């Protein structure tokens, strides 16, 4: 099944490479443009030196992780992100005609490799911040390795949020507006330490929209700013558990689609 997915992605990439200049401009643009988000954070920190007790390198660690996770999701989850179209134009039918799980067929149909520019940008910021924190002894090299692995696994969080949003579309069809709430807002929020937010928002970001487990929860412990060692194994568990939950909801929505029609 994985082999087939890879084959699909390969074909999708070939299709993309028909427009090579588009890809190259896109790669550079996404890389440079996504960096502005961090520039804004850096601008605030240049003036006030700390946000909620976190300096620019520590925030950079959070930002880098979230950026890699989101960038990878936007690269490989492109079709899921644009799922509204499948519902509005009835294109979902075609997915049901293939002898594979619909989600696998869907994800394999297109990728947006130019979004890797944003991943690269996040990786650079993560590397710079990580290097500095290891140098000053705030973070152990092993901790940095955990952070790198956590960024990759973290991709599951935006993917799951998107999957839940898309599955909600089986009932409400229009999901474009919902995405702002379920994806853009929480992912942006995860660029900063969650402790700066009011309690209700912090709760939201570690439960229903669990972006806190991509970066903040483990990093807080790794930098000695609170939490316990449990954070290191609970975070990946929550991320994987949330993904399973999201997939279950997707299956439920799929059955609902079949019983109501478009």
């Amino acid at each position: 099944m994985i082999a087939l997915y890879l084959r699909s992605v390969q074909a999708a990439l070939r299709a993309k490479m028909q427009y090579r200049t588009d890809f190259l401009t896109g790669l550079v643009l996404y890389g440079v443009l996504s960096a502005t988000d961090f520039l804004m954070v850096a601008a605030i920190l240049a003036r006030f030196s700390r946000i909620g007790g976190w300096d620019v390198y520590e925030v950079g660690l959070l930002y880098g992780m979230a950026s890699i996770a989101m960038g990878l999701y936007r690269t490989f989850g492109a079709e899921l992100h644009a799922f509204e179209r499948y519902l509005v134009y009835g294109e979902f039918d075609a997915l049901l005609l293939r002898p594979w799980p619909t989600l696998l067929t869907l994800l394999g149909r297109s990728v947006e490799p130019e979004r890797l520019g944003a991943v690269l940008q996040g990786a650079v910021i993560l590397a710079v911040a990580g290097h500095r924190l290891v140098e000053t002894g705030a973070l152990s090299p092993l901790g940095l390795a955990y952070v790198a692995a956590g960024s990759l696994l973290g991709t599951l969080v935006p993917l799951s949020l998107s999957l839940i949003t898309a599955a909600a579309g089986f009932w409400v069809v229009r999901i474009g507006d919902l995405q702002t709430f379920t994806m853009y807002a929480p992912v942006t929020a995860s660029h900063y330490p969650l402790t700066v937010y009011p309690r209700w928002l912090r709760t939201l970001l570690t439960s229903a929209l669990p972006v806190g487990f991509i970066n903040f929860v483990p990093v807080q412990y790794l930098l000695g700013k609170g939490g316990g060692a449990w954070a290191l194994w609970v975070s990946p568990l929550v991320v994987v558990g949330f993904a399973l939950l999201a997939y279950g909801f997707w299956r439920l929505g799929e059955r609902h689609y079949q019983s109501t029609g478009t």
Partner: protein
Amino acid sequence: MGAIVEAIHLSKVFRVAKDRPGVLGALRGLVSREGRDITAVDDISFAIDTGEFVGYLGPNGAGKSTTIKMLAGILHPTRGEVRVEGKSPQRQRREVVRRLGVVFGQRTQAWWDLPVRDTLELLAAMYGVKPKEYRASLKRFDELLEIGAFLDVPVRKLSLGQRMRADLAAAWLHRPPVVFLDEPTVGLDAVAKRRVREFLKEVNRQEGTTILLTTHDMDDIEVLCSRVMVINHGRLVYDGDLTGLRRAVGAPSELRVEFAAPVGEPPSGPWTLVAQEGAAVTVAFDRSTVTAAEVISRLSRCGDIRDVYMAEPDIERVIEALYRQEGPGSHHAGQSRPPVDRRRALG
């Protein structure tokens, strides 16, 4: 041979949400299930035998697409059941679709930005077609559909006819025993249509593929189908062969008789006079009330007959007549869909 596709008391009721005014109304609409019911398919039963070529006819919104979608497992029936090779496409979706080919004339299965070959290769991998079988199929498709000429051209650059040929190849690649075709000839020119029909005829005869085809082109039906099912207002109003359909509708057949010499007054009988020019007389009669032989024998009393031409009623007119007949389910409104002209890859 046993039935390979079965519909058993199949019904599909769509619930259309009631529009409410205002923000509150819209919010209520999200939670309440209140609405109007529309019966798109109303208690349809049929069985298609292995190797049959069935035409499925009906006006727009009659329930054709809804039926096909239920047969293919895209939709769950509200009542009743579907069996394809004895399995339910709803409960065993992946097993059933592996043995199914589906072509929607309005949309392509192919990868928009890639050559046809890439799509076929990917589908071969998806359906587990062995490399040897794959090469054999490709050769055969080239003979029947001449797809070799454009195998390496990106799909977006193909003509409509070429794209349909590519779609047919894609649907038959894994040699499915059952294929559903939804308007495969729509929008094609005469040459392309003929090629598509030849292919369908060939695979139906040689491979024994069971085919269910919807179309608005009566030539498709006349050339291809051994059996016709007609749906109107969600109900099956006819199921049988073409001749029977003509008879059932009672559409008039036409008879043109040339006498040795001009006959004076128009002959009268159980027919209506269509034309009279010199020695030639054309009459229309209803085959369900009088036979052709009877008409000829009655006409021969007017004078010596030199020649006789029979004209069966145009199938198009037969169908029109059938659609006009108000069936018992005529109070049900059909489902009409906005035309979809987005042609995207459906890989």
